[in-house]
C-alpha cells in the first residue's frame, strides 16, 4: 500500500509526513510525529481525549484521517503554552486542581481554548455543554468548570 504525502501546519510549524490511507490524524500525531500529548480514550469520537483543532475548529482527531490534514492548520495541546509561559487555561487548571489523573486534560486544554476563543464570556451552562464531549471520570467536572470560568475572566482582563 503506498503511503500518502501530506503537507500541513502543526502548532504553527510547517510539517510534512507520510501516512497510510486509513490512519487517523490521532494515529499520525502519536505514532508518526511522536506528539503523544493528544490521547486516545476510545477512538470512536465519544471521549474527547484526542481533541485538536483543524483550521480553528474543534474536532476529535480519531475521527479525522491523517490525509485530511493536507493544507490545514492543526492545533494540539503541545501548542497551547506560549513558549515557556503557560496559557491562562493551563495555569487555572493547575490552581483549581481541575485534574486528577490528567489523561483528559490535554483534550480539555484544546477544547477550552476553542470555547474561549469563540465565546470569551460563557455562562456555566454554555461551558458545560461545550465541554460535554470531553469525558472526565475523576473530577466530577466541578473544578474543571470553575477553572474555565476563572481562565475566561483572566483572559478577558488581559
Amino acid at each position, binding site marked *: 500500500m503506498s503511503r500518502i504525502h501530506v503537507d500541513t501546519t502543526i502548532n504553527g510549524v510547517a510539517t510534512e509526513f507520510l501516512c497510510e490511507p486509513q490512519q487517523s490524524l490521532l494515529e499520525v500525531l502519536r505514532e508518526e510525529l511522536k506528539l503523544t500529548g493528544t490521547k486516545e480514550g476510545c477512538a470512536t469520537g465519544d471521549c474527547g481525549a484526542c481533541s485538536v483543532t483543524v483550521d480553528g475548529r474543534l474536532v476529535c482527531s480519531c475521527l479525522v484521517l491523517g490525509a485530511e490534514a493536507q493544507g490545514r492548520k492543526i492545533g494540539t495541546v503541545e501548542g497551547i503554552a506560549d513558549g515557556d509561559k503557560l496559557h491562562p487555561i493551563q495555569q487555572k487548571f493547575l490552581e483549581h486542581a481541575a485534574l486528577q489523573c*490528567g489523561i483528559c486534560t490535554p483534550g480539555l486544554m484544546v477544547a477550552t481554548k476553542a470555547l474561549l476563543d469563540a465565546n470569551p464570556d460563557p455562562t456555566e451552562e454554555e461551558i458545560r455543554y461545550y465541554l460535554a464531549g470531553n469525558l472526565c471520570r475523576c473530577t466530577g467536572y466541578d473544578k474543571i468548570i470553575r477553572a474555565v470560568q476563572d481562565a475566561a475572566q483572566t483572559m478577558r482582563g488581559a
Partner: protein
Amino acid sequence: MSEARDFRVVGTRPIRPDGVDKVTGRANFGADFSLPGMLYAQVLRSPHAHARIVSIDTKKAAKMPGVFAVVTGADFPRVGSEEITGGEGAGDYRDLATNIMARDKALYHGHAVAAVAAVSPAVAADALAAIKVKYKVLTPVMDLDAAMADDATLIDETLFTAGLPEKPAKPSNVAAVMEMKRGDVEKGFAQADVVVEGTYRTPTVHQGYIEPHACVATINQGGQATVWCCTQGHFDVRSASAKVLGMNVSDIRVIPSEIGGGFGGKTTIYGEPVAILLSKKSGRPIKLVMTRDEVFRASGPASATKCVVKIGAKRDGTITAMSAWLGYEAGAFKGSSMAPGAMCIFAPYNVPNFLIRGHDVLVNKPKVAAYRAPGAPQSMYACESLLDELARKLDIDPIDLRMKNAVEEGCQAAYGPKFNAIGFKQCLEAAKRHPNYTKALGPGEGRGVAAGFWFNAGMQSSAEIHINEDGTVTVIEGNPDIGGSRASMALMAAEELGVPYERVRVQVADTESAGYTNVTGGSRVTFATGMAVIHAARDIIAQCKQRAAATWGVDAEMVDWQDGKVIPKPGVNAELKPLTLADIAKGSPRTGGPLLGRASLNARGAGAGFSVNMAHVKVDTETGKVDVLGFTAIQDAGKAIHPSYVEGQMQGGAVQGLGWALNEEYVYNADGVMQNAGFLDYRMPVASDMPMIDTQIIEVANPTHPYGVRGVGEVPIVAPLAAAANAVRDATGVRIHDLPLSPPRVLEALDAARS
C-alpha cells in the same frame, strides 16, 4: 500517634509537582512509550460467552509477512492454585493466568484466546483474522438467578462451594458463601414495632477510566524483562506477571507510567505477561494497548448484585435487627467483592442483632475487578434505600433515624473490630445543619439522603528522602500518582522538614528503584505512604541532629530540631548558630556523606471513613429522565493534607456514583454479548449532566496517623447510589429497587404506579 498541632503547609492548596507536565501534554501515560524495533500486539478474543475451545490453528497467521510471533494458552506455563494477596480484589493466580489467556474454555465474550505481534497494528489485525478457532458453544449463564438455579449450566465443573461446614456433594456456580452474625436476629425482628424488607439489584458497571490498559514489554535472551505500563501497582504487576510466567520476581522490572484513571480496575494485570511472552518469541519489544471495546468486554468491571435486606425497628427508630442476603456476580472466575460488601452493609449502625449471608457467584461475564470501595456501593445502596423506607414508615427524619443508630468511638463494628475515633455522627450533624438540607423543593423535585462507609486500607509502603547538595529535597516512593498524591507527599515532607513546599520534589520510582509498596488503592496512599514519608523525614531529622552535634562537638541530646533547623538547646552555647537543612547538606561530605532518610512499614489502623450525601433531583414524569439539580457530599477526612484533592475525590466519587445510580449498565443480549461496549452507549456522566458538587470536609483526626489522616478516595462513591434513589423516591412517590434509574426504567415504574 496523632498530635494536636498547628500545621505550616499541610492543609494548604499548592500546585501539584507533576501538574505542568499534565497540562502541556508532556506527561507520559501507558500508551505514550515506544522503543526502537517495537512490534504491535493484538489479542484474538472469544466471540462466544461460553464455549469449549476445540482447536486453535495459528499456522497461517504465523507465516504472514510482518508477523513475528503468535501465542495461545498452550504457550503459557500451567499455574497452580494460590490465593492472590496484597491487591484490592479477591482472586487466585491460576484463575488470573486463565483469564489472561483461555485454555480449554472461553468463559465470556471477549476472553483472550490468542495474541499476535506484528510490524504494524494493521498487519496484526490481518493476522488475527487468519487464526482459526473451533468452538463448541455452550449455554451462557448471564445472571445470579440463572447461575444459582438447581439445573444451572456449570461454568466450572470442578468448583465446589467454599465456606460451607462440609464440602457439598455436587459442583455449583456458587464459588463461596459467608455468614456474619450477632445476637439473635429472629428475636430482634420479634421485638420490632415495624419491619421493612426489600430486594434491590444493581447492574454490571465499569470503572470507566479514560485511559485503556497499555504496556510495552521487552525480555532479553537471559530472561530479564522490563515492562512499562499504566497500573495502580507496579509491584503487583511484577509479582503477578512472575507467577503467570513462572519467572523470578527479580527478573522483571516494572516502570510505571502516569496513569489515566483506575478506580481499582488497574490493580490487576491483563496484557503484561502476553507482551512479555510475545517479546520472548519475537526477540523484539512489544506494545500492547487495549481498545475501548476490549476494556469494556475484557477488563474487570464491578459485580452486578442482588441484595435482599430486612430491618426491624422500635417506634422511636431504634433498630432491633437487620438481615441481608447478598448475591455478587464474580464474573467467569471466583472472587467478587462479596466479602467487603457484607462487611460494610451494616457498618454505620450499632445494631444488637444481625445476620448477613453472602454468595460469590460465577457468571459468563469478565472477571470483576476492584471498583472504588469494592462491594460497598451495592450492598449499602440496598440498606440505605431501605432505611429511607423505614424513616418514612416511622415518620422520622432520615438523618435523625441514622443518628439514633449511628456507631461512634468504642462501638463494636458489625465486621469485627472496635471503632477508634470516627466522624460519622459529625457528618450526620453537618448534613442536618447544611442549608441544602432545608432548601425548598420545586414541583417534581425530591431530596434523598444516604450514608457511606469504607474501612480504608493501610498495608506496606516504603519511602526514601534524599537531601540534595543545595538543601532541596527529593522524595522517592512507589505509588503511581492517580489523583495528586505527589502533592500530598511533598506537603508532608515539607511540613516535617520545615522547608518550603516548592523545594520538595516527589518521584514515583520503578520496582528496582523504590522499596516495595502495595497498590495505589484502598484509599491507602496518603495514609500509609504518607506515613512512610513522614518517618523518612524524621530519619533525616535524627541524622541532622547527630551531624550538627558532631560539628559543634556536643552530645546529640544537647540539640533540638525547630522550624527546619538544628539549634543548640538553651544553655548549651549561645555562640552556636542554628544549622539549616541546606547548611547540613552542604557540609555532609565532612559529616558522614549524603543525607539519606528511609522508612518502610506495614501501616495499621487505617481510620474508617464515613460520609453523608444529599441528592436533589428533578424527575420528568413524561420521559422518566432524572436531572440532578444539586448534590452535597460531607465526609470525614481525618486531616485533609491538600483540601482541593480531597474535595476532588468527593466530587469525582459523587459523579461516578450518580452515573451508577442513573445510567450506567452493561446491556447483554441473549447470547451473552455486551451490546453497549463504547462510551456512546455506556453512558457515563458528562459535564452538561451534572451540577456543581458541594463538599464539606469533616476532620476527626485518625489517632493512628501522625497528622490524623484517614483515607478519602473510596468512601465518596458509596452513598450517591442510595442518595439519588431516595431522591427519586421523594420526587415521585415511587420506590424503584433496581438500578440504574434510567429514563425507561423510571418511566415504566411511573406508568405502573399511574395505572
